[in-house]
């Protein structure tokens, strides 16, 4: 009996060791514990003592580090941060993270100074057009440093930035023309995919790494929002406090604190995602679960509003653009929740909710497409219309196929991995579309 208790303690201890490996989930430990116990009892039947049987069984199970690595490769979503952070706990790690802090702070200050210089030297609309170009290269540099990319990848990273800079500044845009605004909006989106290339360390073909990048984008957005909220409150309080002293510090805030804060936050948020994921990791599923039903309600309300509008042609042009933004948001939400989901979990209630979300987005998209085509037939082409239409088609293709795969998944015809793979494979389409808009639309409409 004593040996038996000892065995139980041993197995408990083994469980504890295994669980410390974050790539191995509790369910996996359950599964392996069952295995271990079977193995132990079969060895005991063969005549070994409880102690011996336990030792042999553990030995046969294999080295936990090797095992954890295998699990990590298979379940990268469980510890995407460990894969990039290197989990070893040693002095080397401490020095590494100190060095990283220095790099992050220098890059953040660099980005801030570059944005500030842009504000000081660029005139008129050029500031807005170039804002992303002034900040994002520093973010790309951070990931290039962090992932220690090869020279070839580094060169591939620089080329798009140079190209976009040339296009945005050499194209003879008409002042206040629509194409300039369109190019300014799409340039950061195209550049974000360059950041993605840096993020995945040049390994852009891997579906897993692309999914990691989707995850990163979602978390980065959450962190950026948190930083913006905190910064906003702090600035508000400071301005108020100085106001009571009859000191007006708003010009200082506008000239210095905002550019530094915004540019710094972009870099720091990325670093936070890299270093402190555990905090947000628990928020991601919660956020998607809260906002998915709310977004469905919003989409349905919009559909109802469309239905009560007398004629789709009369729908305001700005509303159409607004709706495009909403659809982009829905897609972001969809990607975010897919990235936060355990791909092995069986179809559940929330997957149905998500399908409803995609279906309502699809309905909105179809209504929008009709409205746009009617407008185009009525009033002819314009840069705004062609961009909105193109975006709609890009989204429509994704949504239709997502519905198909979503239904297939709920019916158990295929795994969730199919849905994941579809989204990761489709990812470059957005980047290519944004790049195409920046490069092709302004000349096509004579830069008006």
């Amino acid at each position, binding site marked *: 009996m004593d040996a038996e208790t000892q065995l139980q303690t041993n197995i408990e201890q083994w469980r504890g060791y295994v669980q410390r490996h974050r790539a191995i989930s509790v369910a996996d430990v359950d599964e392996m514990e*069952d295995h271990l116990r079977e193995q132990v009892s079969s060895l005991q039947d063969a005549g070994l003592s409880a102690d011996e049987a336990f030792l042999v069984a553990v030995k046969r199970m294999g080295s936990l580090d090797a095992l954890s690595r295998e699990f990590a490769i298979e379940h990268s979503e469980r510890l995407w941060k460990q894969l990039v952070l290197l989990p070893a706990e040693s002095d080397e790690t401490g020095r590494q993270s100190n060095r990283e802090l220095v790099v992050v702070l220098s890059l953040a200050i660099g980005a801030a100074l570059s944005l500030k210089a842009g504000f000081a030297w660029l005139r008129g609309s050029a500031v807005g057009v170039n804002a992303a170009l002034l900040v994002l290269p520093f973010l790309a540099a951070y990931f290039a440093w962090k992932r220690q990319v090869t020279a070839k990848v580094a060169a591939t990273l620089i080329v798009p930035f140079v190209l976009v800079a040339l296009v945005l500044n050499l194209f003879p845009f008409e002042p206040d023309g629509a194409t300039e605004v369109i190019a300014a909006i799409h340039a950061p989106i195209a550049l974000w995919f360059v950041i993605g290339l840096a993020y995945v360390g040049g390994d852009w073909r891997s579906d897993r790494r692309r999914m990691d990048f989707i995850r990163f984008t979602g978390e980065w957005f959450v962190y950026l929002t948190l930083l913006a909220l905190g910064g906003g409150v702090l600035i508000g309080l400071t301005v108020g406090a100085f106001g009571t002293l009859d000191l007006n510090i708003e010009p200082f805030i506008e000239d210095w604190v905002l550019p530094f804060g915004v540019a710094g936050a972009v870099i720091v948020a990325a670093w936070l995602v890299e270093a402190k994921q555990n905090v947000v990791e628990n928020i991601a599923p919660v956020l998607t679960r809260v906002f998915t039903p709310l977004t469905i309600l919003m989409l349905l309300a919009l559909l109802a509003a469309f239905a009560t509008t007398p004629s789709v042609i009369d729908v305001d042009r700005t509303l159409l653009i607004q709706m495009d933004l909403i659809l982009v948001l829905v897609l972001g939400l969809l990607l975010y929740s897919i990235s936060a989901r355990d791909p092995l979990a069986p179809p559940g209630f929330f997957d149905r909710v998500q399908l409803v979300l995609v279906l309502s987005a699809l309905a909105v998209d179809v209504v929008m497409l009709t409205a746009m085509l009617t407008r185009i037939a009525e009033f002819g082409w314009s840069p705004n219309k062609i961009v909105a239409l193109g975006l709609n088609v890009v989204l429509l293709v994704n949504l239709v196929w997502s519905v198909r795969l979503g239904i297939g998944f709920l019916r158990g015809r295929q795994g969730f991995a199919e849905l994941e793979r579809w989204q990761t494979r489709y990812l470059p389409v957005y980047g290519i579309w944004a790049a195409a808009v920046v490069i092709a639309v302004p000349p096509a409409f004579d830069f008006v």
Partner: protein
Amino acid sequence: MRIDKDLVAASATPLVLGILAEGESYGYAILEQVNALSRGRMQWTDGMLYPLLHRLERQGHVTSTWRTADSGRRRKHYLITDSGRAALAERRAQWAVVAEALDQVWRDATTPPIVTKGWA
């Protein structure tokens, strides 16, 4: 006889799929069967079976359900899917080619040493 690690890794997927094609099973039982089939000559690192099973599950070749074993413990059972059967057929065809090629090599390769021996 120790079998080369790469060889074990390469044969693991078809072996597991083949065992599951016979019917639903779980980790320990699968390993037992591998042992029996190879008469104990093929030793796997037990733990490595699980990431493999999970990979097959993600690829949709198997599905899993938790059941309660006689011992009262929770146990994860795996069941092959149609796509798993297709993958197994595909692997089988591949292995047949490899085996055939190897077979010829063995036949050609074993003759010379015997001849040399005869001359010595």
